[in-house]
């Protein structure tokens, strides 16, 4: 990183880069800085204060919306700060820099018998990004979001202070910076408590459910399992509305796996580079592209459900942690299958009482507008103590939509209507996924009090308002 002395411009043109959301549907230019040391971040903060530019934080760039974009301004990419600072295989406590990824994490710890208590659907996000979004896994009901497993973090604040936060110490910042979308400060180290496991396998069950009500009932009953997740066929209408396939998974108790030392090995977990032994995974998305339009997706979803209903119904098998948890990595670059326009994800969290009705209405609306979701995923959640919590006692439904130059207008209108329906049902939203909310809608679900608390903290840690992103200006900046 070039030094920023007083004379050279703080935002040199050679740092300009195209930055995108994960789905490649949104793009914004930014002056990209990729530090390797905390001092360089401090230096950039000083330059921003003096010269009046803003800084957006970015990890692996895996958020679906505009959380890691800062149009026309500086973007601080932390993915090069990825050192492992400490690993205690006896206690399962890991300390790493914010750019350390989930992949780095499990490859470091699994052979010692430790696994991330909360894992996202892909292994590429950074720990800093995971904390900023306060991610959840397919086990949110059981273990909460990742923030509940953070023992401690250190952070550099835009006001120049370095602080240490634990659930007890600086508790208000602890609960606001986790889930705070990188708007209060930069994590400089993160200490996590991992979970002890006794095998590299999970005991998985798969079965089909014929409609949304049954899907949600199964998800609710699945609370006893370590993991529970449902795939929804969003193209089916009528009595089959919201039908899909459920997966539950449980850790194996000690002694069940006859050869844990083998199954815990990284090589054993890694996905084979070829599908069926011959087709390289890296080219699969090119073939998927051919079917990524409404009729194609209808055919694929119908065929998948039919198979789940018949051959795949009521199956039980062992699956590796990697194969079960990181389903999204099964096809590399799968988001490219959506074509040039990319995709957005639209995820709503609803109380268990209203979920079935609200989502029935939403799924029907999508179909009526000719914009069916190509992929739907249901999970079970519980509330947590973090300031920008997206979770509640209920379910979430994540919907992926294809974006094209021609459908942007229709999609915008659709998401606006979906948000209205969700808010009426007591819905909540998730900043890591969102690209549709307005400031008013954000206030509606988070509440004015939460926002005031956030602004008070931001005023303290970032009095000059240096940390900003497109998401911040869209959802959180009061006029």
């Amino acid at each position, binding site marked *: 990183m070039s030094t920023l002395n007083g004379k050279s411009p703080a935002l040199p*043109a050679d740092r300009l880069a*195209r930055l995108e959301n994960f789905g490649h549907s949104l793009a914004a*230019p930014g002056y990209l800085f990729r530090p390797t040391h905390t001092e360089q971040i401090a230096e950039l903060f000083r330059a921003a204060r003096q010269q009046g*530019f*803003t800084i957006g934080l970015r990890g692996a760039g895996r958020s679906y919306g505009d959380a890691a974009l800062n149009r026309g*301004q500086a973007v601080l990419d932390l993915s090069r700060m990825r050192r492992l600072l400490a690993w205690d295989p006896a206690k399962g406590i890991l300390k790493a820099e914010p750019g350390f990824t989930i992949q780095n994490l499990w490859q470091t710890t699994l052979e010692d018998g430790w696994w991330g208590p909360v894992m996202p659907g892909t292994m590429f996000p950074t720990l800093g990004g995971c904390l900023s979004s306060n991610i959840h896994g397919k086990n949110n009901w059981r273990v909460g979001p990742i923030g509940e497993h953070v023992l401690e973090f250190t952070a550099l604040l835009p006001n120049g202070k370095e602080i240490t936060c634990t659930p007890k110490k600086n508790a208000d910042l602890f609960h606001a910076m986790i889930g705070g979308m990188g708007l209060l400060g930069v994590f400089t180290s993160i200490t996590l408590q991992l979970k002890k496991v006794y095998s590299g396998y999970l005991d998985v069950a798969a079965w089909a459910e014929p409609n949304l009500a049954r899907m949600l009932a199964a998800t609710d009953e699945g609370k006893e399992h370590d993991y529970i997740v449902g795939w929804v066929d969003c193209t089916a209408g009528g009595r089959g509305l919201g039908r899909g396939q459920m997966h539950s998974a449980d850790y194996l108790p000690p002694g069940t796996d006859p050869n844990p030392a083998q199954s815990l090995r990284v090589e054993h977990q890694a996905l084979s580079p070829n599908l069926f032994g011959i087709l390289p995974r890296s080219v699969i998305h090119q073939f998927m592209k051919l079917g990524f339009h409404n009729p194609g997706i209808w055919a694929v979803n119908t065929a998948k459900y039919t198979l789940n209903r018949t051959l795949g119904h009521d199956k039980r098998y062992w699956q590796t942690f990697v194969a079960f948890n990181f389903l999204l990595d099964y096809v590399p670059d799968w988001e490219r299958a959506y074509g040039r326009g990319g995709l957005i994800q639209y995820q709503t969290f609803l109380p268990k009482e209203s979920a079935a009705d609200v989502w029935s209405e939403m799924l029907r609306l999508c179909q009526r507008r000719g914009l069916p979701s190509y992929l739907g995923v249901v999970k079970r959640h519980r509330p947590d103590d973090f300031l920008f919590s997206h979770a509640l006692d209920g379910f979430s439904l994540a919907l992926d939509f294809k974006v094209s130059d021609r459908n*942007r*207008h229709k999609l915008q209108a659709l998401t606006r209507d979906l948000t209205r329906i969700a808010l009426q049902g007591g819905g909540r939203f998730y900043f890591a996924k969102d690209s549709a909310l*307005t400031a008013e809608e954000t206030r509606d679900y988070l509440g004015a009090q939460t926002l005031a608390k956030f602004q008070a903290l931001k005023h303290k840690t970032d009095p000059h308002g240096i940390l900003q992103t497109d998401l911040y200006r*869209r959802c959180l900046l009061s006029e």
Partner: protein
Amino acid sequence: MTQPLIRDESPLQPRRRVVIVGASAGIGAALARQLAKEGAALALLARRADVLTALCKEINAAAGETRALAYAHDVTDTGSVPGLFQKILADLGTIDSIVYCAGVMPSVIFTEYNYEKDAAMTAAHLLGAFAWLGPAATLFERMGAGQIVGISSVAGDRGRVINPGYHASKAGFTTYLESLRNRLTRRGVNVLTIKPGRVDTEMTRGAGITKGLYPVEKTAAAIARAMRQRKQVVYIPGWYRWMMLVIIHLPSFLFRRLKF
């Protein structure tokens, strides 16, 4: 702390953001009005701050929101371009198109050879274009998207007797745009060369041309259309293409005897 001055309706529907260099009068001003009507956000640059501010006020009042931002700038002040470009990028957030529209046409009589006038035209048509379109090309290349529009002239197609400096500088500009096109098309950038004939503007009338003038509003509409369609080279009015085809192929032994 700085805020981008232009806000989108949503991430899914970003606004079109256009920079117009040379926007206070003539084609630039008409194009600004036209693009604002189409919903674009504009950064307008020109020497005359008062005229420019009035134009922005008019556009913003008509739109009922801030769509046009004014930046007083003289294109001969090339040293200030990098900083100003950065400021515009920060204010708009993104730039989707840049229109280089700055032009001067001092009246030059048949026997006159005036270095100051020729140099002024070269500074406005060529050096200013280098200064502005270079940073724009850099940005667009990195983005893998964008559009560069140069308002050149039919005058660049052939060196006629009336104003050698004007013809030479416009020919240079046209060739520069062609080079940019050949560099940038493969990067997803559209480079559009506009070759207007006689357009009814202050500049044209100031040079003493009053006959056969094409309305400036129609010119602006045609440019906006060509921008939407991402064309390469467009003559305005369209029939000039055929006339210029003849002129381009006129043999020199004939051409050097003509007086137009």
